[in-house]
């Protein structure tokens, strides 16, 4: 009963907000371009369903590609750095500088490199850049987070560097890798949207483009519909990775 209550709590809150919103808009007769009623948003969503869902799929596809690229590059780099302390000292400051540089500031450059007729590549590149850091720093932290006694044991039994990496450091890093990917998945979606805004072209017709387009035409209800899809997409990605993390950790620990 208690769990049911807690599960229903957010639904109740959302329903209450929607109800107040709907009533207020109707009573005050707010113009649609300023604040459409929830019912108007639903109608806009249904009317524009094909184009909005297609755009959502485009954004999701770009975010996913970015996540995969970020994951591969971050893991490869983290492994290289883990094997060579010298390389780590070399890479760290560069990684930090790149991390603190706002993605918006890099976007025009990436646009040029990707080619103005390939805005999708620019979006994927920028989103990958954002998703890279949580995976990279998670992997670095994880590869170092080893039980010092286990490390001594590997040394005692004459383990090679590669054996230590494969049989000790990588498995030790798993929880950190999962956490890094979970954070990165959310950031990849955000990164894809921001990058699409910045690359400012209709060539990559993701949800961000639909938002801009609707805003320019004062189709506020359609904007809300696109936002709703975006929110649902982010929440679904987070839930998926959360479930994956829980499942994998249970297997890892055996309970």
């Amino acid at each position, binding site marked *: 009963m208690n769990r049911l209550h807690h599960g229903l709590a957010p639904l109740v809150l959302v329903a209450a907000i929607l109800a107040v919103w709907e009533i207020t808009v109707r009573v005050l007769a707010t113009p649609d371009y300023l604040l459409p009623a929830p019912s108007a948003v639903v109608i806009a969503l249904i009317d524009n369903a094909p184009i909005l869902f297609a755009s959502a799929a485009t954004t999701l596809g770009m975010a996913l590609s970015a996540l995969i690229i970020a994951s591969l590059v971050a893991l490869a780099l983290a492994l290289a750095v883990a094997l060579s302390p010298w390389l780590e000292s070399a890479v760290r400051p560069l990684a930090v500088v790149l991390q603190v540089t706002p993605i918006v500031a890099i976007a025009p450059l990436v646009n040029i490199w990707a080619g103005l007729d390939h805005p999708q590549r620019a979006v994927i590149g920028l989103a990958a850049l954002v998703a890279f850091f949580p995976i990279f720093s998670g992997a670095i932290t994880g590869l170092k987070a080893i039980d010092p006694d286990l490390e001594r*044991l590997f040394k005692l*039994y004459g383990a090679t560097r590669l054996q230590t990496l494969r049989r000790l450091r990588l498995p030790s890093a798993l929880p950190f890798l999962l956490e890094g990917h979970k954070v990165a998945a959310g950031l990849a979606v955000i990164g894809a949207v921001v990058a699409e805004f910045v690359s400012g072209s209709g060539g990559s017709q993701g949800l961000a483009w639909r938002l801009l387009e609707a805003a320019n035409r004062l189709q506020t209800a359609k904007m809300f519909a696109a936002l709703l899809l975006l929110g649902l997409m982010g929440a679904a990605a987070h839930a998926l990775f959360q479930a994956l993390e829980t499942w994998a950790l249970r297997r890892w620990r055996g309970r």
Partner: protein
Amino acid sequence: MPLAALNAVEVDYPGRGRALGPFSLTLEPGEIVALVGPSGCGKSTALRLLAGLEQPTSGRVERAAGRGETSVVFQAATLMPWAGALDNVALPLELAGSNRQAARAKAEGALARVRLKGARDAKPAQLSGGMAMRVSLARALVTEPRLLLLDEPFAALDEITRRALAQDIHVLWAESRPAIVFVTHNVEEAVFMAGRVLVMTPGPGRLAYEARIDAPLPRPEHIRASARFREQVEQVSAALQQAMAA
């Protein structure tokens, strides 16, 4: 011919000064030696020297250098949390390059020796503290070491588990007779387990007192109640108190 020896070794840690020494210890094959002393007296440092995990600042360490000749059991079970008991025990063999099949077969035998055959697939989180220590022991024994080093193996265990583990170690010792050096705070456990008990002074650790415990090994549990045993426990305790006061 001694199995291993520390000859007037000294260990200095940068910023912390001298941790150990000068300290000497000669180990005969098959003997059981207990190092007793207050925290920070360098007992564990002495053990790491014998394991080859650390080098002395001065003095000489003689030890059998072959892979698997020396095994260590740490205070915590130190198992890989993601691997089952059998895989944990097979690890030293696999690291030494033996194939997975052979390593696992030997590991099964080692698990059986510590009476944990049924727990072969259990992950460390599913084992009790005592069981995890026995898996750790099985892993140490799987290479058939000539020298077994135990770093406070009883510290994290309750009284009953501790006594059971002490018995287990004796039984396992009787099967293959490795030399054992173990570090402990627990005087009674030291006197029960060892043929020689060395009491060390607090930092830097030096030898303060040596007791020979002559009761034959392995020892029955009821020996703990005997007058001779109690007397030796008292003697070692008194020496320990003196060492700490000095």
